[in-house]
């Protein structure tokens, strides 16, 4: 079974995240960047499926030059090879455009499963599996907390608000996973060394047959008009429990007309 894992490099949640004042796009330059956390679970799930059978795990990333750090991490976890779509023309693309570009690259790859994280910590849209399913015509199995592959079928437990749905489809299929699904491995020293010599294909938009008129900020179907950094929340009243703490909280809630 050949698996493509889609990974995204994002600003570290622990860093101060900003938009650029000039073009209102995400500031990727001045912050620490990491692999989107949930994507580590996607990589882990792909490796587990591969280890239970055979096949190759290919990492696919769209992002600027420095996204190579995220690719290396995925390779050091144990993925076999990687494809990096990198082109200045892609800067400022929104999610819908990004799905177009990634779908074009997917046309050049052979896979039984495409696995991605359920959402990225920067945009938090949680729609890439749906977008790619719509683009490619391959089934969407999103929000998986468990994935079972049997022959040409894949079955997931899709997390819902009050439990889960069991959803199944024939491969090739597009799966997104939630963090409950597994515990991602740490790259070993051996893995880190091996990652340096694993095959990496770098593609420009021309290489992938992506129409330049359909990507990038100027062509984006959704656009940021303006933004403002909000002042941080101010701490309110802090009270120490003197044996009547519960009543104090109740009094506060009553004063706010909540109870």
């Amino acid at each position, binding site marked *: 079974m050949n698996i493509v894992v889609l990974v995204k490099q994002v600003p570290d949640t622990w860093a101060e995240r900003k938009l650029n004042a000039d073009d209102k796009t995400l500031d990727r330059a001045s912050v620490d960047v990491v692999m989107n956390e949930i994507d580590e679970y996607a990589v882990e799930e792909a490796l587990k499926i591969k280890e239970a059978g055979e096949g190759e795990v290919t990492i696919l990333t769209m992002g600027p030059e420095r996204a190579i750090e995220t690719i290396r991490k995925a390779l050091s976890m144990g993925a076999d090879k990687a494809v990096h779509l990198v082109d200045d023309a892609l800067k400022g693309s*929104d999610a819908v455009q990004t799905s177009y570009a990634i779908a074009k690259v997917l046309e050049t790859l052979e896979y039984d499963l495409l696995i991605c994280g359920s959402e990225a910590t920067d945009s938090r849209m949680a729609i890439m599996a749906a977008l790619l399913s719509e683009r490619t015509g391959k*089934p969407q199995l999103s929000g998986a*907390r468990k994935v079972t592959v049997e022959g040409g079928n894949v079955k997931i437990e899709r997390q*819902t608000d009050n439990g889960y749905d*069991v*959803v199944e489809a024939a491969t090739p299929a597009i799966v997104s996973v939630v963090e409950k699904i597994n515990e991602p491995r740490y790259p070993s020293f051996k893995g880190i060394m091996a990652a340096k010599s694993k095959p990496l294909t770098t593609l420009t938009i021309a290489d992938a047959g992506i129409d330049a008129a359909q990507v990038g900020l100027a062509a984006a179907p959704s656009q940021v008009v303006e933004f403002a950094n909000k002042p941080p929340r101010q701490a309110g009243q802090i009270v120490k429990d003197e044996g009547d*703490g519960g009543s104090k909280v109740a009094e506060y809630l009553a004063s706010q007309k909540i109870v």
Partner: protein
Amino acid sequence: MAEILVLVDHVEGTPKKASYELLTLARSLGEPSAVVLGKGASAAAEKVGAYGAEKIYVSEAEELSAYLVAPKASVLAQLVADKSPAAVLIPSNAEGKEIAARLAVKTGSGLLTDAVGITPEFVAEQQIFGGAVAVQAKVATGTPIITVRPNSTAPSEQAGAGTVEQVTATFTDADKAARVVDSVVEAKGGRPDLGEASIVVSGGRGMGNAENFSIVEALADSLGAAVGASRAATDAGWYPHQNQVGQTGRTVSPQLYVAVGISGAIQHRAGMQTSKTIVAINKDPEAPIFELADFGLVGDLFTVVPQLTEEITKRKG
């Protein structure tokens, strides 16, 4: 007035509160038409006229419930082609966002998710990076497709014509690729949905074990609240993962958020700091949660919370 399509989220015929909020919001933008799909759609359709729906498009086609997400997007795409609405509004939950995503591709339109407000010019306000930045965004191509977070608008009734129109939907093979074979309910019933509850009570590492979550549940029940949990608590297996509030869990924006035994790491704050009022109970006076609490109580949750529950029950009499 321009027609605004509003996708109604309902559970087997009972619309969720977010659907009424969306219809209320749609009235400020044009003439709302409700779209009610799947099992129980006809029953749900009877309830949405009271919130201003002029037209109600209904389909109970079996495919809508038998296959994941894609068939619903197909029906909406057919309605967009037939009715040329000024915008499509969809509740911002996991399924709603996925329907919106597919609809955007099908109709060649721009998509905005997680809006907390929409102006008459269809400029949407979003709060990003855990509420640290307020963004105004618009759709530049096609029909604006906007998903709106629960608790963004106060629902209000206003009678609409409520003319029901049955929609004859056609589905492609691709719509029928991901089959829903079973639905399993794990959570105890009776509590409001975490995403749209107006009060949320969450427990964290300070709870110590799964059994102690009954203290949080008792407080939640006294307030009519939903129960949340921090990542520390869900990772430890003390509470179900679907109740996790935070960066990698659910984002909530209730009227009142009560954090019990939660230190307030950035991971958690990103999912709750746009709540209107925040109350924190923690024994550590240095806990970062106190930096954003409107009211903080430094004390032992095991004595404070039961006392609070009792006090609220008494006041509600």
